[in-house]
Each structure stands twice: as C-alpha cells, then as structure tokens.
C-alpha cells in the first residue's frame, strides 16, 4: 500500500493518457496524490474543435481543464509550477531540481510517477523526468521513493526492456475517458473516435484504456 503518490508532468493532459487509470486506482483506495504540473501547455497546437482558443487565451482554458481533470481523478493537491511550455530543458535546471526536491522532502511520497528521461518523445517530458531523477538522487538511498516512469519513444523496449509494472485499470476505463475528455481544447478532435473505437473493441484503444505500463527507474546503477 502506497502512502503518498507524487505525480510530476510538464503539461496538463500528460496525466490523462498514460496514467489516469493508475491515479484513479490510488485515489479510490484513499491514497493521497500530489500533482506537480510544470506548465499550462501554453504552446499547444490544438485550439479546440471548433476553434475556441487562441495563443493568449489557451493557458487560462487549459488551467480550467486541468482543475476539472484533477477533480475527476480525485487529486486534491495540484501544484502548478508556473513554467513555460517548451522551455523546461532551457530553464535553470538546478532551480527546478531544487523545487522538486523541496516538494519531495515536504510530502515524503512513497512513489513518484513521471516520464522516463530520454524515452518520452517530447523534450519537456525528457527534461521533467531527468530533473525528477536528479531530485530523488539528492536523498539518502534509504529515503528515496520508488520512481515509476512512463516511456513511449519508438523502439524504447529494445533499450530499456519491457515495462515491469503493468496496471490493470479496466474498472476505471470509463473514468479515464472522462479525464481525457476534460482536456477539451486538446482532445475534442479525437475523443469521439476514441470512444467509438473502444466500444467497437479496437485492440489498440482497448489496450490504452485498460492497461497502463511503467518502468521502475533504476536510480542507482
């Protein structure tokens, strides 16, 4: 039984696709979840369908969507870090690591969920995962929480192996869809097709909505 989960992702909706079911499985069991979301996805390309956002209104819209998603996920402690989409790898890394470290010290999570650095496709994802790992490394080994990392770059299994943690989230599939749907500006173009595929038993969509995969990150090697 986990004591407290810390989720760290750079963009609102990162928590929806790969990990919503897992978060739901923890919150519904009464385990508190803290979510550090580094940016508001200010540089997203999706502006809603039909168009309802623009570059300047998008952050506020995505903030509302994020709050709604957190409500659905049972996350009561959301901590937006106020950073800028696309710029995570270019900001002061030591400062980011320090802020993450401070949060880890404060809430003492037993498990951290973040991206697998180097295998998470988007530069913000990789930079987020890397900073989290650095923050965890600052703790004495016996105090380090376990890190479950999300990887999805092409061919990542050939390098880092198969995911060792597979979470069955079947009972949360409908709720996960609702969380994805909450990020309306980003997902309006695909949610209907996703629901349809799910109802028609499409294997790939079914897999995404019923199983979530993580790699336990080797902090010390």
């Amino acid at each position, binding site marked *: 039984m986990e004591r407290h989960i810390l989720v760290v992702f750079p963009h609102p909706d990162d928590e929806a696709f790969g990990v919503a079911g897992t978060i739901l499985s923890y919150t519904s069991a009464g385990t508190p979840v803290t979510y550090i979301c580094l940016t508001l996805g200010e*540089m*997203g*390309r*999706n*502006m*809603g*369908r*039909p*168009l309802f956002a*623009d*570059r*300047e*209104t998008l*952050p506020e819209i995505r903030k509302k969507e994020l709050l709604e998603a957190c409500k659905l996920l049972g996350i009561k402690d959301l901590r937006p870090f106020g950073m*800028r989409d*696309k710029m995570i790898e270019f900001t002061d890394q030591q400062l980011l690591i320090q802020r993450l470290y401070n949060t880890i010290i404060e809430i003492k999570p037993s498990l951290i969920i973040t991206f697998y650095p180097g295998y998470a*496709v*988007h*530069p*913000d994802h990789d930079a987020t995962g890397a900073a989290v790992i650095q923050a965890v490394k600052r703790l004495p080994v016996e105090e380090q929480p376990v890190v479950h990392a999300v990887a999805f*770059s*092409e061919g990542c299994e050939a390098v880092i192996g198969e995911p060792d943690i597979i979470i069955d989230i079947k009972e949360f599939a409908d709720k996960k869809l609702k969380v994805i749907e909450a990020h309306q500006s980003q997902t309006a*173009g695909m949610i209907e097709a996703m629901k349809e595929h799910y109802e028609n038993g499409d294997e790939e969509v079914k897999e995404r909505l019923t199983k979530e995969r993580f790699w336990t990150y080797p902090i010390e090697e």
Partner: protein
Amino acid sequence: MKPIDPQMAQKTLSDLKGKQLYVHLETTNGAYASHRNQSFLSAGTFIRNVQLTFLNGTIKGHGPYRIGMETELGYVYAEGLTDWKINKKGQVLFAGHDKDGKLAIAFQLSETPFPK
C-alpha cells in the same frame, strides 16, 4: 478567432505603423510530428515579446494570407495566416490553422508586453 478580413486587417496594420510594439511570432509542426513520422524533419520556432517598430506592414494573398513588414534595420514575414482577432487588451492576433484546426503559425502584435 475569425477568418481574416484582409481589408480590416490592413487597416489595423496601418494603424500600428510607427508604434512601439511587442511581437510574438511562432511556427510549429507539433512536438509529435517526428514521432509519428520519423522521416519528417520537425522545424519550428517562437520568439515572444520582441520589441519592434515597423515602417510598412502589408497583408497580401487570397487566403491563406501573408504579412510582410519592413523595419528600420530589417524585415518580418509570416505566411499561412487564416484567422485573426483583436482581443480585449487590443492585441492583434493572427494565426494559421490547418484543416484540423491545429495552429501552424501565430503572429501577434501588441502595444503592451504579452504575459511571460
């Protein structure tokens, strides 16, 4: 945003001529373009809150539109613009959206800085 009305847009640009402006200029293919198609070279850029004053600014084309500007020392150019709006702060936002409504380019002018 609404489809660009080139006459109105030109009038708006002409009104901004000679003023000290802050510019946001951006192009993007999306962060996942090369993930979905590995042979695709994803190139993009953004620059936010560059201060600029232009001598001439003109909108051209039949949609998607192009905007070109001449400044004292150089130029600004944007193509693929489809939609625009003037927001409550008086900021002039031009954008180009593809057939799926995804933003491909943004070109924005403001007399006050855009939020960081």
